[in-house]
């Protein structure tokens, strides 16, 4: 049981290092166990070192850096053993344009073997999607869903009134 855990842990750690290197453009990160002899009696620690910086407690990272590290962790697990589907609500909220674009492209790659639904207001994210559903209301408190053809975003030209981020 412990061996199985360690095998999974090392595999996910391998993904974590690789994915973080890509998303942070040369940064380094890894996950560590408190206790390799008895993993179930300890926790799992995340270390992340963005490029040009010293390793610090992850609490000291910026909002965008924390989001990137969280997303890396989720994707490292997905790469090892995908859940059947993912529903991600505004996970790109803190990201600057460069990071949002990298996350968008990586989500697109991962979605080739997993169904991913992302709620987002960011053009960088919407641009990568295979399809876009627009949710809107007509002043009566009732939600309606329109597909991208209807909101004419065949070329992902998202109308500024709806999103414009």
């Amino acid at each position, binding site marked *: 049981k412990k061996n199985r*855990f360690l095998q999974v842990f090392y595999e996910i750690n391998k993904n974590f290092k690789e994915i973080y290197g890509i998303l942070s453009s040369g940064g380094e990160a890894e996950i560590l166990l408190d206790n390799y002899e008895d993993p179930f009696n300890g926790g799992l620690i995340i270390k992340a070192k963005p490029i040009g910086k010293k390793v610090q407690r992850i609490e000291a990272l910026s909002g965008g850096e924390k989001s990137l590290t969280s997303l890396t962790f989720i994707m490292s697990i997905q790469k090892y053993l995908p859940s*059947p589907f993912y529903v991600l*609500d505004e996970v790109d909220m803190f990201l600057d344009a460069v990071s949002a674009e990298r996350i968008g492209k990586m989500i697109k790659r991962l979605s080739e073997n997993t169904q991913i639904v992302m709620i987002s207001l960011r053009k960088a994210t919407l641009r990568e999607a295979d399809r*876009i559903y627009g949710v809107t209301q007509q002043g009566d408190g*009732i*939600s309606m869903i329109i597909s991208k053809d209807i909101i004419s975003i065949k070329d992902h030209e998202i109308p500024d009134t709806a999103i414009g981020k």
Partner: protein
Amino acid sequence: MYIKMMKMENFKSFHKKTVIPFEKGFTAVTGPNGSGKSNISDAIIFVLGQKGSRALRAQKLTDLIFNGGANRDPATHASVSIVFDNKSREIAIDSDEIEITRTIRLSPNNPDGYSSNIYINNKKVSHTDLETILDNARINMDSFNIVQQGDITSVIEIGSKERRKIIDTIS
């Protein structure tokens, strides 16, 4: 395995019967503030058996029933259905399609009362049965496959033991 379709009727801001087809790959959902995007993810969490109402931004489960908006009367019941493609038999039921439906209905006599029912392929099941079936299919919300609005940094903020448990459930 993937979600083929979701149906919502009178769930939060979705008044009429709304059908959302889902396909493989990468689907984005967008729209103005307050339009109902997060309500869609609430519907998914609800139909997969979410027990408390707080994660759904509701004080009690009956808050999930369409309240009428500005101009109409509130509805008396809400229902969400999700249809999975199950050709890979990840759900241990011998059917290519699995439809899970959860309903919540106000009690006619008791203003605070309600009844909540769960059906798999139109057969009523207990809440516990649903949990077991979904756990065995690894359709649970423990590996951060469902991330709600504002929660993305929580992977960083949860305790190290809780984070390790995520790996436990995978191994």
